[in-house]
C-alpha cells in the first residue's frame, strides 16, 4: 500500500486505465454472454438446429438469389425428416400501426406455426397459444407480449377474448406472453399471428420466402443425425429454373451466428469469426497493457535507488521480480474491483434505460470469470517485462540513480 500511495498520479492513471478497460470488457462480455447463452424463450439450443437462409445460384452466369425460406419449403420438405421431432417456424418481424387514445403504437408482428409454441418455451401470463386447428381455420387470433398488452390495453387485468386492432385488422387476443429481449432477435415480437392468415399466397410453391425455422431433435445425440438428414434432403430438392446450385444450412446456434456475421452459404466461418473476435479482444487488451508496461517501467526507474538498496541488503533478482509482479497484481486486482463496481453500475443503468428493449444484462459467474482472467492477464503481462528490466539493473548504477 505504501507503494501505491507513492506517486499518487501514476497510481491513479494505472487504476483508471485498468478499471476503464475492464469495465468495457465486462459490459461487452455481459452483452455477448446474453446473446450467446440460452435465453428466454430459446432454452433448448443444445437440441436445436436453425434454418435461416437459402441461396440459389447460376454458377455459369453468376446470378444469385438469397433469402429466408418459404412455408412451402418447410411444410413440404423439412417436415418429412425423421430426426426432426418438432419444427418451430416463424416469419420475419413486420410492422403495423395501432391507435390507442389517439396515439400511434407501432406493433411488430410475426407469423408462426403451431409447433412454434412447443419448440420455444414462452411463458404465458394469460391464455394459451394457437393450435393447429385454429391455424387450419385461419382464425384471426393473436398472442401478444406483456409490453403490448400494457401499451394497448393499459391497466386492464385480463385481455384474453378482447380485440386488438392493427393496420385496421382486428385480432382476438388468445394469450399474453412475457416479453422477449430484442437480443433474441428471431423470437422477439410484440404480436404473434397464425401463418395461415398471412396475405402471401398459400399455394405458392417457391422455396424462398420470409420464414425461418428451429428444428428440434429428440435429444442432443440426434442433432448431428438431423443435420445429415437435412443435407441429404436438400440434395433432392428440385433446383428452380435458370439456376444450377442450391444452398441451405441447418446450423447449431453459434454456427448460425458466425455464418450470418462472417460466413457464406458454403462456409460457416466459425474459426474465422472466433479468430477475429479473439484478435479484436487481444488488441483491445494489448493497447492498455502496453501503456501500463510503460507506466510500470517509469515507476521502476524512479525506484532504482530503492531497488539498489534492496539488492545490496540481500534481495536476489528473482525475489525482486516476484515482489514487483505481486505489487502489480495487487494494483491490477484493485483496478479490477473498481472495474466490477463500475460495470455493475453501467449494467444497472443499461437495464433501467431499456436501451435494448427488454434486454436485461447481468454479471453472472461466466462474466466474472472472464473478467478475473483479464485481470490476471493484465497483471502478469504488464508486470513481467518491467520486472525483468528491473532485475537486470546493476546495483551500483541503481544506487547512483
Amino acid at each position, binding site marked *: 500500500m*505504501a507503494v501505491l500511495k*507513492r506517486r499518487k498520479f501514476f497510481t491513479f492513471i494505472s487504476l483508471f486505465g485498468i478499471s476503464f478497460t475492464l469495465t468495457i470488457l465486462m459490459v461487452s462480455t455481459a452483452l455477448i454472454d446474453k446473446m450467446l447463452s440460452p435465453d428466454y424463450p430459446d432454452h433448448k439450443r443444445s437440441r436445436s438446429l436453425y434454418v435461416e437462409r437459402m441461396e440459389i445460384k447460376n454458377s455459369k452466369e453468376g446470378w444469385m438469389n438469397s433469402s429466408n425460406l418459404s412455408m412451402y419449403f418447410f411444410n413440404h420438405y423439412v417436415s418429412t425428416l425423421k430426426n426432426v421431432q418438432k419444427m418451430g417456424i416463424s416469419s420475419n418481424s413486420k410492422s403495423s400501426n395501432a391507435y390507442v387514445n389517439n396515439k400511434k403504437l407501432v406493433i411488430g408482428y410475426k407469423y408462426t406455426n403451431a409447433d412454434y409454441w412447443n419448440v420455444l418455451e414462452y411463458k404465458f401470463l394469460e391464455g394459451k397459444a394457437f393450435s393447429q386447428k385454429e391455424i387450419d381455420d385461419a382464425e384471426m387470433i393473436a398472442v401478444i407480449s406483456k409490453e403490448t398488452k400494457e401499451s394497448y390495453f393499459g391497466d386492464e387485468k385480463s385481455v384474453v377474448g378482447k380485440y386488438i386492432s392493427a393496420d385496421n385488422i382486428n385480432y382476438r387476443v388468445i394469450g399474453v406472453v412475457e416479453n422477449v429481449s430484442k437480443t433474441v432477435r428471431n423470437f422477439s415480437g410484440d404480436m404473434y399471428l397464425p401463418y395461415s392468415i398471412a396475405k402471401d399466397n398459400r399455394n405458392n410453391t417457391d422455396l424462398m420466402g420470409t420464414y425461418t425455422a428451429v428444428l428440434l431433435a429428440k435429444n442432443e445425440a440426434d442433432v448431428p443425425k438431423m443435420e445429415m438428414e437435412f443435407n441429404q434432403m436438400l440434395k433432392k430438392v428440385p433446383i428452380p429454373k435458370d439456376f444450377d446450385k442450391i444452398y441451405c444450412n441447418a446450423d447449431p446456434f453459434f454456427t448460425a451466428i458466425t455464418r450470418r456475421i462472417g460466413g457464406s452459404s458454403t462456409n460457416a466461418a466459425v474459426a474465422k469469426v472466433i479468430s477475429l473476435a479473439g484478435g479484436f479482444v487481444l488488441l483491445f487488451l494489448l493497447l492498455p497493457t502496453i501503456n501500463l508496461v510503460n507506466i510500470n517501467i517509469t515507476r521502476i526507474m524512479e525506484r532504482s*535507488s530503492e531497488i539498489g*538498496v534492496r539488492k*545490496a*541488503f*540481500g534481495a*536476489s*533478482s528473482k525475489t525482486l521480480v516476484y515482489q514487483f509482479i505481486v505489487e502489480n497484481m495487487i494494483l491490477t486486482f484493485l483496478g479490477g474491483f473498481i472495474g466490477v463496481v463500475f460495470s455493475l453500475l453501467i449494467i444497472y443503468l443499461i437495464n433501467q434505460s431499456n436501451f435494448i428493449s427488454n434486454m436485461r444484462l447481468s454479471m453472472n459467474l461466466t462474466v466474472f470469470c472472464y473478467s478475473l482472467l483479464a485481470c490476471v492477464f493484465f497483471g502478469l503481462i504488464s508486470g513481467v517485462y518491467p520486472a525483468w528490466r528491473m532485475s537486470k539493473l546493476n*546495483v551500483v548504477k541503481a544506487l547512483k540513480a
Partner: protein
Amino acid sequence: MIRLQNIEKVYRTDTVETLAINGINLDIAKGEFLSIMGPSGCGKSTLLNIIGLLDEPSKGQIKIDDTDIRKFSDQQLAKFRNQKLGFIFQSYHLINDLQVLDNVELPLLYRNASAKERKALASEALEKVGLSNRLKHFPTQLSGGQRQRVAIARAIVGNPQIILADEPTGNLDSAMGNEIMEILLNLNKTEGTTIVMVTHDESMAHKTHRLVRLFDGSQVQ
C-alpha cells in the same frame, strides 16, 4: 578475513576504456577497522563496491573467510551479502515511504524471519544507535545525523561480520560526523565487526586501525 588478489576493474564504453582499479592486493583481518582514502576518482568507491560484492572485478580474486566469491550465482551473492555484509551509504539511501522501523527491518525480510523477530531485532538495533523513540517516523522527518544512524541500524540489524561504509559522514556537519564515527568505533570495539570505510576526512581516518591510500586506481600506502 577479506583477501583481494590482483584486483583490476576496467570500465568500457564504445570509445573509451578506463582502468579504475589497477592490480590491488589487500588483506583485511577480522575485527579490523580500515580506512580507504584518496583523491576524487581514484577508485575508492569502486574498490569498496567490489569488496561488498556489489560490483565484479574485471580481473583478480576475492576471498571472504576463505570463500572464493567469483563463481557465486546472483542468488548466492545476494544471500552472502544478506548474511555477512552490511552497508552504509553517504546519501543514507533510506526508503522514504517506509517508517524507520521498516527501513531497519529490510535486510531481515530476505532471511525469512518472522514479523515478530524482525520487529524485535530492528528495535534492538535502533536502541544501539540511540533512536528507539523514532520507530514510527519517516526518514523525511529526521535530521541528517538521525538518518545516518538509521542507516547504521539497518546495516547492523542482521549481525553482519563486515560493514562497508562509503563516506558515512560525508553529508554531515563535524559534530554529527563525530557522533557517527563514535558509533562505528564502538561497534568495532564491542562487537568485533570488521569495518571498511571510504572517507575524505583525514581526522576520521586516523581514528581507525589502518589507512590505505589510493591514487589513480593503485595502492600507494
